[in-house]
């Protein structure tokens, strides 16, 4: 399916457009902010509501909230995208190999996935963050390492189905090895599933990051994320409600769009044959 066709599917264009706008704002927004996201205006009153000078108000340390929401968005979106990429790479490789090779290897690989599934993974992420400090790279990898299991299961299922198709037989007869077949024939045919999975796993990753922020294990100040901002805002929601409303609005809208987009794409690709699995 071409991109243009895809965008014409019902329910795809709207969330995609919104997401593009949010992404654009996160990237260019800080250039239009009245002050850098980490600058403090010592003269001004701190924790003021929205005004012309500060469209989203200022936080409890007098920093411009608009700039912080934009910069936080960069991080949250990056966490979502990169950790999903990590999950994709591991999940596709694992699932495709297991599904294509089948037999004992498949059984073993899937048993490992089963075992990992039964681990309370969120707890490992917490332990990892405690252990290695809060490097942003680690946040990506840790969350990706949690999310690849779903991906591996779905990819394996699809690969099993693909393997019975004629073009795979043809490739085998043509003398291609398993690695080449997986690379050239299996993976390209997984693209639809993968796009759907990825779209649905991005909001998961963003939520996990915000959960870590709640526990105080998130990104290092003065850098910030939507999760960290929402968490700060939730503490003082009665006193400075704008501190919660703006970041929570962006966080919620983004997650909403990704979920909506994922649903719509799934419909578009195969009318709902893919079962949604979430963890």
């Amino acid at each position, binding site marked *: 399916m071409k991109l243009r066709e895809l965008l014409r599917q019902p329910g795809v264009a709207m969330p995609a457009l919104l997401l593009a706008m949010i992404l654009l704002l996160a990237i260019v927004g800080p250039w239009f902010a009245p002050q850098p996201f980490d600058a403090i205006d010592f003269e001004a009153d701190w924790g003021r509501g929205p005004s012309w000078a500060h469209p989203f108000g200022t936080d409890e340390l007098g920093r411009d909230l608009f700039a912080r929401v934009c910069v936080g968005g960069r991080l949250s979106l990056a966490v979502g995208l990169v950790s999903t990429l990590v999950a994709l790479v591991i999940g596709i490789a694992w699932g495709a190999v297991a599904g294509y090779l089948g037999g004992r290897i498949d059984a073993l690989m899937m048993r490992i996935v089963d075992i990992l599934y039964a681990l309370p993974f969120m707890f490992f992420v917490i332990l990892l963050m405690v252990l290695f400090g809060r490097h942003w790279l680690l946040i990506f990898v840790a969350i990706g390492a949690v999310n690849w299991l779903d991906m591996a299961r779905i990819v394996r299922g699809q690969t099993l189905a693909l393997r019975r198709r004629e073009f795979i037989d043809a490739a085998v007869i043509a003398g291609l090895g398993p690695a080449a077949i997986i690379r050239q024939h299996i993976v390209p045919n997984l693209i639809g599933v993968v796009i759907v999975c990825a779209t649905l796993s991005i909001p998961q990753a963003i939520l996990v990051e915000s959960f870590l922020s709640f526990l105080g294990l998130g990104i290092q100040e003065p850098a910030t994320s939507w999760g960290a901002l929402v968490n700060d805002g939730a503490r003082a929601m009665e006193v400075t409600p704008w501190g919660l409303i703006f970041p929570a609005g962006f966080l919620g809208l983004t997650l909403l769009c990704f979920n909506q987009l994922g649903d719509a794409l799934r419909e578009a690709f195969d009318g709902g044959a893919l079962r949604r699995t*979430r963890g």
Partner: protein
Amino acid sequence: MLSYAGRRLLTAVPTLFVLIALSFFLMHLAPGGPFDSERSLPPEIEARLAAEFHLDEPLWRQFGRYLGGLLHGDLGPSFQYEGQTVSGLIASGAPVSAAIGAAAMLLALSGGVALGAIAAMRPGSRLDRGLMLIALTGLSVPSYVVAPLLILIFALSLAWLPAGGWDGGIAAAVLPSIALALPQLAAIARLTRGALAEALDAPWIRTARAKGLPEHLIVLRHALKPALLPVLSYLGPAAAGLMTGSVVVEQVFGIPGIGRYFVQGALNRDYTLVLGVVLFYGALVIVFNFIVDLAYGALDPRVRLA
């Protein structure tokens, strides 16, 4: 059937072993120890404490010691809470977590299936879209925002319910259960709606409709059972989600459950307490998945547990 259960049990053993080994070494690799504090103890006292808890032995010996204790059902003493055993702490916290978790699960299931069914009856209608949008929103708002909001509304403004704490009463469980249930409720509503809408499109349903059966009877008698299968398979992840969520909810509401023990234990390097909680949760997830599989077999004749 019995042999199936037996084999499942056998795979549970390596699963739990991996779980314990990973958590054990991760915990012990983390910098800092259980007895570090602001006031730093004199070195001789520190050495004596380390010896008392065998922390001066090589790591593999400590691991062996821990496994040996486990075989006798001994989870060891807590480092942080003087004179308390981990089993005792879990025994006091688990019923509280379980009560709130079970209430949340019940709420998520009944509420989710009901909302999903209502939405699926008229796919594409305004009601359907509205409900699904609400469900998506429920999925998109973190529980550490929902929980304080609930407190503000129901405890402070309306003064209907307590703002936190735990006395074993129903009132104290209401808000935490709701906060815990909401994301799962939303997920289940979406699943039910999707599966039911699909089932209602199936040929045998069309036959039933042609016979003139009222729509709610069609849903209840014919469509709901097959539509519940994906919901059922979601219960495992839902249980895991509830456990993770309990960490937040127990902290915000000040509830003496084991989710709080986990975070406190990890931060205080209370090795045994963390291991105990992880093991407990791991075992729970395994048992839960097993029950779900059994139920799956009972509901879907195509699935054979062999």
